[in-house]
């Protein structure tokens, strides 16, 4: 199964990322879970690198490992008791059923319905410019959705400030 360096790197990253992700879910200490989430994000970035998606990997590190996880850690700091020692909630069984159903559905959709033919094309080397062209091309790009998303985010930020600020 391991034929070259890329495959080796993939398996190390995949196993590491899955272990970290599992620990995030299973650990009782919410602060440790948040830190392991950073590790998970980093592992995903590593997989992007293996897939020659270097720009995406950089963005993954910057946005998820750098920013989202900090947000989560901030939220952890605002919780009253960072170490959760209580048992499972009384909804645990129904929650488990919902989660398992969703996971099965997701796997079915992603694994079962995907065409797994392997492209013979070599990966695009500098991915930055093609990504930018795909996003901001004048004729068939996504400039408008991009700008709309920006405005929505801006509105959300202003809304957050308005909610938090008293008076």
């Amino acid at each position: 199964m391991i034929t070259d360096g890329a495959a080796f790197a993939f398996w190390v990253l995949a196993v590491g990322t899955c272990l970290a992700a599992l620990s995030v879910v299973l650990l009782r200490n919410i602060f440790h879970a948040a830190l392991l989430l950073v590790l998970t994000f980093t592992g995903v970035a590593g997989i992007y690198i293996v897939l020659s998606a270097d720009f995406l990997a950089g963005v993954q590190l910057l946005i998820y490992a750098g920013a989202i996880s900090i947000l989560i850690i901030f939220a952890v700091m605002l919780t009253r008791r960072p170490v959760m020692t209580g048992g499972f909630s009384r909804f645990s069984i129904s929650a488990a059923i919902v989660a398992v159903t969703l996971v099965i559905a997701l796997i079915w959709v992603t694994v079962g319905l995907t065409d797994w033919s392997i492209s013979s094309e070599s990966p695009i080397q500098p991915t930055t410019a093609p990504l930018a062209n795909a996003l901001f091309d004048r004729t068939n790009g996504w400039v408008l959705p991009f700008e709309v998303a920006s405005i929505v985010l801006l509105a959300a930020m202003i809304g957050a400030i308005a909610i938090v600020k008293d008076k």
Partner: protein
Amino acid sequence: MLKTEPYVLNMGPQHPSTHGVFRMELLLDGETVVDMRPIMGYLHRGIEKLSEERSYTQCIPFTDRMDYLSSMTGNLSLCLAIEKLAGIEVSERAKYLRVIMAELQRIASHLFGVGTFIDDCGASGTPFLYMLREREKLIDLFEMASGARLTYSYIRPGGVMRDVPDEFWPAVRRFVAEMPRYIDEYEQLLTGNEILRARTIGVGILPREQAINASASGPVLRGSGVKWDLRKADPYCVYDRFDFDIPTGKQGDAFDRYFVRVQEMRQSVRILEQAIRDIPSGDPLPKVALFFHPPAGDAYGRSETPRGELGFYLVSDGSIAPYRFKIRSPSFINITALCDMVVGWRIADAVAITGSIDIVMGEVDR
């Protein structure tokens, strides 16, 4: 608004910027000080009680160890009280020498006080060490006069320990001539500094009425705009013969206290110039024995130290030792106003405001 729970932070007694062993119990909301309690006593040595077992002259070394940054003025305050109690006369030359020593000491102490204050504002020691450069020259002067560099015990009841040596005069003249230029240098580095101004102007305001009510004295009181200086208000030694101003602040913030100290250094240089010019010849040594029996009674002697009014209240029962030895120490009284100054400010301001009061724990705890 997100509500968070305030928490207690014990700042000190071991902390880089609590000036020795001062302890602040801070109640913080995030970084904002909600409540504050000063806790003193870690350096308590029982000086008041110890003094009641010793002769009047033997008490003088204790005053060196109270405000160890301005031992001369400590000596002077106690000697003024003892002289008042025992009715001892002091020669003219001794009075002038006392003024010279007190003013040199004021400059030395303000240099140290301003330097540590700037350090408390976050500078990494450069202004502080510039100021220590001049303080070193002053310490050399004191060493010439008394033989000691920190605990002088130079001023004695009835005069001074001994006349200054001949090489003292050229050295002190050179210092007085150079000092204004150095003060300009400090001001160039600090007074206009945008960061320092942002950190100190309007920070830690002690309003005029509150300063008076708290019985504050020294630069803390004058920073709040009260023109009160014992050298003018209740002249001792020969201060009434000199021409000098009392600098005061406008609103009583940390910057005003800093600025008052810098201006006071300039005024001290003025006094020194006049005192060195006018000093008469004569014998400054005390005319009383080392051990004496003052008549039964009480006396309160005080002088303006760099930190404010240092007073000694002595009660004599006619014996060789004081019956009661009470110290009014300016650092202790000034620090009681701290709580009102820091509430509502951040941790960093609490440190800077404490630095602007310029406390010496040896004097607070005694």
